[in-house]
């Protein structure tokens, strides 16, 4: 669901960078202390997996892309702060090395997918794990895709309202909320189901090796 470069106005991405800067500072606080030789290999492996998953993407009509995130498994295994940092790094590397996403859209993408996605996953998991752990993991993964999808659709859909010429011609993203919301959200309902299956499999793998932190 990366927003590509060049479709977000400075009125959107500059405040987003300010917010993301604060969030990155919060997430990085005490990072070196929390990482040890047990956490680092797992985090690095999962980050690389999320990076690989994010590169298999298809464009969807709303001007975004559809792909699995892997942010739920990062959040469930390492917590929101590490997941946010790791996913931000994934997004930065994807944009610089492959042009997937982009530097101007990095902050919005990171806040939507990295922060909101991982926070939604952890909250859903904690709320539902008493009922059934597998269902809680699946629900967390589904939510970690759909909520960022909603935020990305909102960020794209408001562009014609906040960045246009006097005659109403858009300057950045051309479609309004009436198009972006269904176009981004509907495919992500199904992508979320695929992400749920994948996350349950990785969760079981991690649990068998006693990695789980959430």
């Amino acid at each position, binding site marked *: 669901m990366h927003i590509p470069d060049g479709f977000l106005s400075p009125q959107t991405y500059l405040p987003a960078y300010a917010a993301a800067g604060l969030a990155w500072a919060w997430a990085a606080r005490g990072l070196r*202390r929390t990482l040890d*030789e047990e956490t*680092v*290999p797992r985090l690095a492996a999962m980050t690389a997996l999320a990076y690989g998953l994010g590169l298999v993407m298809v464009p969807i009509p709303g*001007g975004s892309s559809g792909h699995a995130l892997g942010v739920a498994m990062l959040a469930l295994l390492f917590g929101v702060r590490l997941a946010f940092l790791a996913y931000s790094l994934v997004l930065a590397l994807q944009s610089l090395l492959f042009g997937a996403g982009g*530097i*101007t859209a990095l902050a919005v993408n990171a806040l939507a997918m990295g922060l909101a996605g991982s926070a939604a996953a952890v909250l859903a998991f904690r709320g539902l794990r008493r009922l059934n752990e597998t269902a809680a993991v699946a629900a967390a993964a589904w939510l970690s895709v759909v909520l960022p999808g909603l935020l990305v659709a909102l960020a794209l859909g408001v562009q014609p309202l906040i960045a246009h010429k006097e005659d109403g011609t858009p300057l950045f993203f*051309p479609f309004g909320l009436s198009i972006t919301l269904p176009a981004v959200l509907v495919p992500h309902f199904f992508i979320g189901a695929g992400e749920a299956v994948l996350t349950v*499999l*990785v969760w079981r793998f991690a649990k068998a090796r006693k990695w789980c932190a959430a």
Partner: protein
Amino acid sequence: MVRGVKATHWLLAYFAAVVAVTFIHAPWLLVALLVVALAMSGRGRWKIARRAVLAGLTFNLAVSLGYAAVAQWQGSFSARYLMLVNLRVLLLLFLGFWFVARVNLLEACRFSPTLGFVVTLAAGQIGAFARLLRDFRLAFASRNAAAPALQDRARHAAAQAVQLLDKSVCMAAETALAMRSRGCFDDYADLPAMTPANQPAPVWRPRHGAVRTSYRKP
């Protein structure tokens, strides 16, 4: 890279250029900047340009065609908008690929030890993942003279996924041990800070019982 210009400065220049480009809404100016960037990017310019075009092609095509259809239907079609958005995306992608081709990303992140540490770790793992995937693909191809059945492919993919994660963790563990041996992890982070208030002068004594040290009280 131009001698004397640090990678971090290139990173800042790249960020400034990206922000500046998004404030430009005149297609002719974007064309002029693209020509300047092409002229300055040296021998690899066409390779970078090709990468930029291919990277943005699918998304720009989807948005452009969608816009053309919707705007024609609503009677508000603007060819100038299509030029503007496509040129802007192309220029931003070109700048990004040019920056990566010119500058060592790890060196550019050195201004922050934490960022450098995390980027080194992730870049190393991504490289390891890419190598492993290629090895698996070649091994699978070499062991199947005819095209394998769907079931065989699924079994192979499942086995590959588990092996990939395990091997990746082992490789990252080796990296982590190498990092420990070079002092990357702070083993004394949980100890109380040595402020003058809790530092008995003039001889330093460890206050934490669990700390093993070669220090001997004189």
